[in-house]
């Protein structure tokens, strides 16, 4: 059973690449409530990326069940999973994850391209632009920057545009993949503050993946993915 407010629920999820002898990820159970902040720590090669792709519905787990917002996404067709991601999941990557050929505003509104429900929520193009503009302003990106090319922004500003793109249309789940790896300590803290403020303001559930253990203290939930080299690789929820 899924209790009310459970946004993410994983049961006995394993993923194994074809032709490999061991699972890249194996998670017994994991449940996230709405608004929770989960930190997934793991060094490179520990299956972080695979886990992200599984959570985002790009890959289907080899076994087990993943329920997002009550939907068994492994049971959906590939295109329905893509649609589900477009509608309900926002993603923030490492640096350089903006489309260089779009303006800052367009980089945010491009999220509407593949999502019917986000478009509904964003309504018309004019509304979409207004919503995106509001969001960008709230992320401390003033109007005069909105039509400039991405290349004119600092790395920190680019990350904020990326957050705006992930959050526009009000996705229930936000997945962040090493978004701070290119930032120095000051910027990193400021970015985390901003990220938490925004996801809380949108009532969004955050899944944050990083190799940096120093960040873990700021999250309510932490899981650790173990190295693939040492024995069978597993991801186990830590007791924190």
């Amino acid at each position, binding site marked *: 059973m899924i209790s009310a407010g459970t946004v993410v629920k994983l049961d006995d999820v394993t993923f194994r690449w074809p032709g490999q002898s061991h699972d890249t990820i194996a998670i017994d159970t994991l449940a996230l409530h709405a608004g929770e902040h989960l930190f997934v720590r793991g060094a490179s090669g520990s299956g972080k990326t695979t886990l992200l*792709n599984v959570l985002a519905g*790009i890959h289907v787990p080899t076994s087990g069940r993943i329920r997002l917002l009550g939907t068994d996404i492994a049971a959906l067709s*590939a295109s329905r999973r893509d649609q589900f991601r477009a509608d309900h999941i926002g993603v923030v990557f490492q640096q*350089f994850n*903006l489309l260089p*050929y779009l303006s800052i505003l*367009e980089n945010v509104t491009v999220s509407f391209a593949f999502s019917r429900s986000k478009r509904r929520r964003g309504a018309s193009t004019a509304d979409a632009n207004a919503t995106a503009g509001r969001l960008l302003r709230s992320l401390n990106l003033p109007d005069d920057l909105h039509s400039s090319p991405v290349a004119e922004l600092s790395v920190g500003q680019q990350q904020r545009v990326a957050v705006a793109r992930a959050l526009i249309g009000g996705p229930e789940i936000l*997945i962040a*993949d090493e978004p701070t790896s290119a930032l120095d300590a000051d910027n990193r803290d400021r970015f985390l503050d901003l990220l938490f403020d925004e996801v809380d303001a949108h009532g969004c559930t955050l899944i944050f993946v990083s190799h940096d253990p120093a960040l873990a203290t700021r999250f309510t939930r932490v899981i650790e993915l173990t190295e693939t080299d040492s024995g069978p690789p597993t991801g186990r929820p830590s007791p924190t």
Partner: protein
Amino acid sequence: MSLLRIALKSAQFRRTSLLLTVLSIAISVGLLLGVDVVRKEAKSGFLNTISETDLIVGARSGPTNLLLYSVFHIGDATNNVSWESFQVISSREEVAWAVPISLGDSHRGYRVMGTTPDYFDFYRYGNKNPLAFQSGEPFAEVYDTVLGADVARDLGYKLGDEIIISHGLVSVGFTDHDDKPFTVVGILEKTGTPVDRTVQVTLAGIEAIHVDWQGGTRSGLTVNAEQALRFDLTPKTITAFMLGLENRALTFRVQRDINGYPAEPMSAIIPGATLAEFWRTISTVEQVLFVLSGLVLVAGLLGMLTTILSTLNERRREIAVLRAIGARPVNIVMLIMLETLMVVVSGCLLGLVMLYALLAAARPFVTSRFGIDISPSLPDTTQGLIIFGVIAGATMVSLIPGFIAYRRSIQDGLAVRI
């Protein structure tokens, strides 16, 4: 924001390399279409070297040989046709008009053709075009001559000039008919046919310059131009003659009758059919040209494939971002194919524009120099098929980068390791 808009913006961002690709496609498409245009114009120009003439009659020989010497003035007749036979056949009731021609002399490398003023009334070329005069008029007197456009231009003749005709086809001093000069009374417009390189004189003039000749050399007695006019200048033989019939349906019957004419062995050919047959033997050249420009096009498409493949690596992040916001792998393939289509369609359009601009610019020159009128017309079926084939081929080609992008977008998912 639609997929098309994303594709447009993305392509715009990488415009330098894409524009070069567009240019190379444009050049190869323009070349292919250009070869097609020239080929068609050359063919129709050739096939219409002579039109509205139903039969050409000469001494018995192969059709190609008869065509070559009578129309193209290449080579020599094997034998002549007697004036009597010409009279008999031209007075048949099926015959609407008959124009005799007499070849064998030359003027500074250009063939001299003796004929009657009817020639200017009945000879047609191209799309039933009559011969038109730049200046002057058809000949009336025995020693009048009408020059083809090239002859007048190359030798710098104008109305009223006198020219000397040489006996035979090579101009060697003592064989000139220098005692009987001809006066230029007319200069024809450019036709793009062998007429341009021909000196037309009266049939009687041909007789007159030969009255004091025997077997290719001057005979002992000399007859000056005035005296020659008092001789009977009706020719005994002519080289060939052209016939126009009252009714085209009678062509085969008249042809059969001439070929079986008992008094003299003669051949009658249908010029259009013989021209078409002759064209087939020399059309290998056009096919080679066509194949070559086809290969240029293949090279252009391969260049495009290379360009698009090389951009795939730098586009991996872009593809991952699009996947993250919900793009399906199929959308990624469409994105690549849209870009290819944009490149190819603009390449084809640019190629067309370049070709027609070039044709329009070259038209006056080509018309005056070669007599071929390359009227800029809308692309016909062949050209439509070529363009359609190019676009279809490019779409097929774009499946290759499309498929690679598809596989990568599934493998990479949201994380790109570069």
